[in-house]
């Protein structure tokens, strides 16, 4: 299970837009029509390959309800990527995007890559938000964008991988200090490590014995 990089993701958005189903489709390749309400935060993981580099994705699926907001906020800062999801058949979930984004801007790492997902694209006949509107919102806010379906698996793989590709690109362009753990990125074992993120002199004295 060796990897070049490990990226931490969070999935956010209103309740019922299909966050948990997207994660399940991505990690287990299956769809569960009756899905339990997420309580707090749930975890999933998968390996992907980008530019023939093995990359491990750790994904935290959050609960959309207001009562869990303060818990889920704890996950923002340490994430390298976020999937912000709305439901194309429910207009209000699209209208709430701005407040989600504000939350993210306030608590997350400014370099976090955000992918906007218009989910349930299989329900095109009940569409309440046009694809153009989604694209427009993404463009205005500097987000990646895809319409996807956790049910048919359409674009699910792409959504996770494109986000990872974007993060990888940021790394290569030197946007991140990958040695800083709070960036949500970890260099895999066995790869040359950058200077350790020592906070003060005491740490540096202990030496690099934790390789």
């Amino acid at each position, binding site marked *: 299970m060796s990897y070049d990089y490990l990226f931490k993701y969070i999935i956010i958005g209103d309740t019922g837009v299909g966050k948990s189903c997207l994660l399940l489709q991505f990690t287990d390749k299956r769809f569960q029509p009756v899905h339990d309400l997420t309580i707090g935060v749930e*975890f999933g*993981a998968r390996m992907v390959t980008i530019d023939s580099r093995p990359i491990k994705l750790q994904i935290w699926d959050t609960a959309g309800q207001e009562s869990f907001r303060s818990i889920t906020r704890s996950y923002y800062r*340490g994430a390298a990527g976020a999937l912000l999801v709305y439901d194309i058949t429910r207009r209000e979930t699209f209208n709430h995007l701005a407040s989600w984004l504000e939350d993210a801007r306030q608590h997350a790492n400014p370099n976090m890559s955000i992918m906007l997902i218009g989910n349930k694209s299989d329900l095109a006949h009940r569409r309440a938000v046009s694809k153009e509107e989604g694209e427009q919102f993404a463009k205005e806010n500097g987000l990646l964008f895809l319409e996807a379906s956790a049910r048919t698996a359409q674009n699910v793989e792409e959504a996770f991988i494109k986000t990872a590709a974007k993060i990888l690109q940021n790394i290569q362009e030197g946007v991140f200090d990958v040695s800083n753990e*709070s960036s949500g990125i970890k260099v895999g074992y066995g790869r040359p490590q950058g200077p350790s993120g020592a906070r003060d002199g005491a740490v540096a004295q202990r030496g690099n014995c934790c390789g």
Partner: protein
Amino acid sequence: MDLVSGYKGVVGLVFGNENSGSNEDSYVERLLDRISNGKLAEDRRSAMIELQAIVAESHGAQLAFGAMGFPVMLAVLKEERDDVEMVRGALEALVGALTPIEHAKGPKNEVQPALMNTDLLSREADSISLLLSLLSEEDFYVRYYTLQLLTALLTNSPNRLQEAILTIPRGITRLMDMLMDREVIRNEALLLLTYLTREAEEIQKILVFEGAFEKIFSIIKEEGGSEGGVVVQDCLQLLNNLLRTNASNQILLRETMGFDPVISILKLRGSTYSFTQQKTINLLSALETINLLMMGGTEADPGKDANKLTNKATLVQKKVLDHLLLLGVESQWAPVAVRCAALQCIGDLIAGQPKNLDILATKVLGEEPQTEPALNSILRILLRTSSMQEFIAADYVFKSFCEKNSDGQTMLASTLIPQPHLMTHAPLEEDVNMSFGSMLLHGLTLSENDGDLETCCRAASVLSHVLKDNVQCKERVIRIELEPPMPSLGASEPLMHRMVKYMALASSMKNKDGKSSTSGNLYVQPIILKLLVTWLADCPNAVHCFLDSRPHLTYLLELVSNSSATVCTRGLAAVLLGECVIYNKSNDNGKDAFTVVDTISQKLGLTSYFLKFDEMQKSFLFTSVKSAQPRKVLTRSTAASMADIEDVDENDSSDQKDEDHPILSAIFDVQFVNLVKKLEGDIRESIVEVYSHPKSKVSVVPAELEQRSGESDGEYIKRLKTFVEKQCSEIQDLLSRNSLLAEDLAKTGGGSNSQPEQRVSGGLDRVQVEKLRRDLQEASQRLEMLKTDKAKIESEASMYRNLAGKMESDLKSLSDAYNSLEQANLYLEKEVRALKGGGPSTIADVEAIKAAAREEAQKDSEAELNDLLVCLGQEQTRVEKLSARLLQLGEDVDTLLEGIGDDVGLPEEGEEEED
């Protein structure tokens, strides 16, 4: 109160005068005043130092500080960040105020001011986030005291702090960062996080999100793994908090770092012969981690089982078994607590896991040429260890190995081949080259030499696992014949008969001498009985083999009624007898089910026979059995005692209110208890069956009674005569059985017209009658009590009735007074109106006077009236309550209150009519 002159420079006086609470109050108040309003920095600092000193020493000062100090201290922390000395001082004072004073005098149950202060501080919404922000300060002491303060808060009000920290963005991140700080801080933070994560699933997840696993394992590695100090123990405790019933975190560990870092803690390096207490605790903690991973998530989690399976498979893949075997079996120096925990883990690892079972079955230990299968080594430990705990742990491995594993059972049973005489009598030390089966047989029969049945009964326990639910194995072992103990002593005998013999021997040894009949023998008989009950279950050939020896039945009957045997022994013997009925396929006269039932009813009586079942079901062993014993959570305080366990404490059994040995609770697992319960039902049913359909020795076919063609009269008569004779003897049999049953029935003392089904459950009836009698007694006692209650309430009611009457008359006189006032008022008004002609100026005056007078009068009477109304209202509810209570007691409230109504209600009505 003159603060200044009273206390200027008289600190000594205050300390000498500690009992005076008010003095301390004012002293603390003055110090706080100097801190918040002082102009000179020097003076403020010295006030802070004085405050620290007194708060750390005196109850009263802590109380006073709690009442007034928090706002002042929090203000310093908030607004004077640059003054490191003041911030340190304020933190130190707070730590002091939250730390219980050890040598505190006064009554024990008095409120601890430190606890009260903790509660007060944790209620301040902003204080927690203020404290967290202090963790980023440069100054070492500021961070250190802040952590101490947070730990104090967490210890005393964990839930409030857990909730508060969750609502603070990046609160947990800040605490996590402390793990990268210098050693003293890091260790303090470890403890803090351990408290913080206790039973707080969301916090556990956030910690893991923040990379807690990496940090924990890197500290453990840095500190030397299991060889490390108490810090390693703290790390493992935190790790276990993060994994305990948290499937999400278990998956994350598995999917990212993997289980290698956990397993490598179990790896013994360096001095494998030295096990300090700290190392023992560290290893026990790491074994607990393995155990937590094998238990999966919470009970409610639907993915629990899948997660459990994957964890077990991954652990085995990572060769955890090798390390467990090294700790539990091979290491000669590992303390018994570690060995037991490792064996327990092995049992859990293989239970219900075909793949893992195979791996254990084929595992070979030792180095060429001295190798042997791991199962043989575990068996040797089981037979030889001097520790009961270790026997139980090793037995658990075999139980788990045999459970639903008929291939494994067959493999073990196939090696059960009796050895020639010499071998059987070889001392145990020479068993290295023995097969598993030979070693087991050797253990079963070892007692021949030294008369000690301990080894025999341990081996019997293993054999019962091998035979459980496996007919092939049962049949195979039935055929095992043993040579007589001495060649001169008769012929060989089946293994089963030998086991019965040992069981009999166990009781006789117990009676004979006190030395060899230590409490140990209390479990020899039950364990051999468990073997036989397991063996005979669903196996007619085993029943046949058992009954092959006539004395067996007699012995069992004696055991069932032997009053010196334990409840459990008698009950199991009764079950075994029952198995001789329900699984009996024999047609031999004298060995068939009918004979056994007849013998039971003759020798014991069915009622007293079934009573043995009831008694056993009610015994501690059967009522306390649980599917899995949750293990104690290792904490700093419990760890030391865990590491010290050497053996089952014999005194522990005293609180079980039973003569059964504690070892039995371990051996009598759920499966066996359920088997016994099921057997009991079958036995009851089957015995009823035997009686309701007596086997007829003579078949009555009407055609047979006719004279056959060609049969002479003489032959016909002869044939009929023998037929009648046979019938006659059968009637005789039935009559005698009938009289036995009647006798049994008479003994139970039950009703004469009871139904047949009730007859067999006579024991139950008797128990029920006893229970009913007790209930009746209790009920009549309760009735007595209720009667006195009722009398009391009645007298109260009459008192209140009088009171109500008095109130009523008071009210009446008051309303009379009011009426006359009203009258006077009216009169005054009239007068005023008459005076109106006197001019506008006076009118106003008079009007004002009049209004004032009226108001005055009204106010007075109204106030009084109000009071009365309140009183009356109270009385009303009181009367209502009492009425309800009386009603409950069956009292007719209406008639009771009739008198009151007459006194109170009627005059009033009369008055109103008059008005």
